[in-house]
């Protein structure tokens, strides 16, 4: 117990609090810029931590990471553009809330949801690191394949009016994900003669294209006045106190949703290769599924953003479980932090909990403080961001957003083809959305495609050695796979069951 107290006091030193307070706004700006990911923000910071003592360096890392993920929700809510892939599903209800004149309510709602998600994630990281890491280790290729299949069952919840179009969109996303070098075999596939496609399609570019560009085009349709006028955003009734209270109420009205989504985020974060981009979609779908009013989702239901943002924040801490306990970086940010630990002379793995326990627990505890400070600063930053966007005339806002989308999609890999692909995705997204295709399933397919393919092919290879002649048996004979199959079947059939139940209740 003493070590926890000592760790907590380490975090609370004036020097560390000042460092976090200065870095959090920068992290938020990075997260809010579409294309500028949390990984990039942390990667930029890491060289500076070399000159710091290990505790301060790691505390700065946790502050920037939390802030960047938090900042990603601002553009998702205000301009329908996920700042980071972890905020994809925040667009679904956050942006409709903005269109209804409830942007600030949404911004305060995510603050409280993030706080709880961050706290649950940190408790999970501190208390259950070792057992959770052991579970994560039992996930092999067949399990990852079924995880992706489970993820794809979410399509029903993201499809909008037509399930058929949702499934087609999801499959299109899976197909686009196959562009580039095959995960097993190394074939260079579907490059259409463009050398830049060998590295595959950049998720961020497609995200920006599908979510942001169609919205910018629609914004340009009525350029007179401000964005406030062109999207019918009214001034929210009541003062700040009332809006903050609304946000608080939204977050805590359904505590089961809050806790469930945080646990989903924590667990998905632990799985190497999975992250906030998947966790927020799963949490959103589970909330919609459990809701008594699923039709209100996608139309500005605050529970949607409570689910996605609490899951996102818990994913942050989850992603450090395999790194700290086993020395396995499970996410790009964890890989960068791996480097930060090495710079400080700390070897990720069990040694961190024995030889360097004080530093490790201080790092874990820092997430409590970093998240609390992020939320506090985020409330002001969100309002500021809102006011800037609302005051800019549409004629300035449209090219400014276009500039950011170009810079954002280019900055990820310094590859200009990503910018061209972003714009092409934007045109395609505009056409498809007007034909009744929701962008959610396409992006979901793109996120899950590589995991599904790798799991399938590697699973077959494993199956070949274990069950010669019937390699597919490996997908149906492992205990975790069976559990995942059952969950996937329930998840796929749930919309049919729910529709029937609603019909019966209506009679």
């Amino acid at each position, binding site marked *: 117990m003493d070590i926890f107290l000592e760790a907590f006091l380490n975090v609370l030193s004036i020097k560390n609090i000042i460092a976090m307070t200065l870095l959090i706004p920068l992290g938020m700006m990075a997260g809010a810029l579409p294309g500028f990911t949390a990984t990039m923000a942390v990667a930029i910071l890491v060289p500076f931590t070399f000159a710091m003592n290990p505790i301060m360096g790691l505390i700065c890392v946790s502050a920037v990471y939390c802030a960047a993920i938090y900042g990603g929700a601002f553009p998702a809510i205000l301009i329908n553009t996920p700042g980071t892939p972890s905020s994809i599903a925040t667009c679904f209800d956050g942006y409709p809330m903005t269109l209804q004149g409830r942007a600030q309510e949404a911004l305060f709602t995510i603050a409280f949801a993030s706080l709880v998600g961050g706290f649950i994630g940190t408790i999970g990281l501190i208390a259950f690191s070792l057992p959770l890491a052991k579970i994560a280790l039992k996930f092999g290729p067949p399990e990852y394949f079924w995880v992706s299949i489970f993820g794809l069952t979410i399509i029903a919840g993201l499809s909008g009016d037509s399930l058929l179009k949702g499934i087609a969109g999801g499959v*299109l996303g899976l197909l686009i994900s196959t562009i580039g070098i095959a995960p097993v075999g190394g074939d260079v596939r579907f490059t259409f003669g463009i050398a830049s496609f060998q590295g595959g399609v950049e998720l961020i570019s497609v995200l920006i294209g599908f979510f942001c560009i169609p919205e910018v085009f*629609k914004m340009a349709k009525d350029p007179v006045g401000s964005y406030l006028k062109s999207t019918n955003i009214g001034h929210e009734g009541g003062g700040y106190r009332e809006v903050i209270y609304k946000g608080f109420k939204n977050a805590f009205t359904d505590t089961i949703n809050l806790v469930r989504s945080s646990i989903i985020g924590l667990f998905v974060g632990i799985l190497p290769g999975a992250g906030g981009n998947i966790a927020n979609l799963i949490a959103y779908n589970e909330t919609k599924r459990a809701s008594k009013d699923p039709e209100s989702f996608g139309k500005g239901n605050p529970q949607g953003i409570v689910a996605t943002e609490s899951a996102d924040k818990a994913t942050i801490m989850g992603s450090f479980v395999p790194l700290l306990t086993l020395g396995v970086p499970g996410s790009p940010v964890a890989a960068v932090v791996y480097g930060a630990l090495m710079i400080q002379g700390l070897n990720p793995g069990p040694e961190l909990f024995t030889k360097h326990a004080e530093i490790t627990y201080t790092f874990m505890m820092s997430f409590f403080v970093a998240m609390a400070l992020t939320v506090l600063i985020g409330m002001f930053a969100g309002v500021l961001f809102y006011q800037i966007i609302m005051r800019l005339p549409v004629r300035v806002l449209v090219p400014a957003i276009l500039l950011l989308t170009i810079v954002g999609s280019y900055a990820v890999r310094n590859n200009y083809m990503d910018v061209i692909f972003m714009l092409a995705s934007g045109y395609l997204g505009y056409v498809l959305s007007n034909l009744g295709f929701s962008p959610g399933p396409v992006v979901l397919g793109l996120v899950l495609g590589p995991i599904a393919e790798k799991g399938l092919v590697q699973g077959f290879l494993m199956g070949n050695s274990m069950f010669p002649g019937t390699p597919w048996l490996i997908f149906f004979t492992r205990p975790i796979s069976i559990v995942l199959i059952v969950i996937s079947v329930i998840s796929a059939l749930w919309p049919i069951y729910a529709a029937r139940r609603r019909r019966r209740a209506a009679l």
Partner: protein
Amino acid sequence: MMLNSDLYGGLIMLAFAGMFWLQMGDFTKFGLMFPKVIIALLAFLGVVMIVKAKVKPQYMKPFLKDINKYMAATMIWSLLWVLSASYVGFFVASVVSMWAIQWFLSSERNLKISAISLAVAIGSVFVIYYVFTKYLYIFFPEGFLF
């Protein structure tokens, strides 16, 4: 006249399946396993949508008619912006495009508005360009100008 969205949606899915099918080269078994299934599935879904378009179509508003001159100008300029940046350089293409889009979207088009738009364009592109190249070491495409 309303738009049969299932028909056009189905045709787009078939077009994508066809494009990828034509690109299938001499891949190894492992490289082919997943995309082959996905292409077949997408083609199947495209056909199902076309059949649905005949049996139980879903109609939508013809969106092309909704595109007014402001929207069209933004769509075209954003394309020119992206395509020209590799030739004239990111800085020049961005300043010109930002200024042009602001000019197109302005209700009044006079010298004062033009000057303000140009100042906004140069200022915002300069800040982005400077921060990214100087501090983040992200270098944007240079063209024949700079």
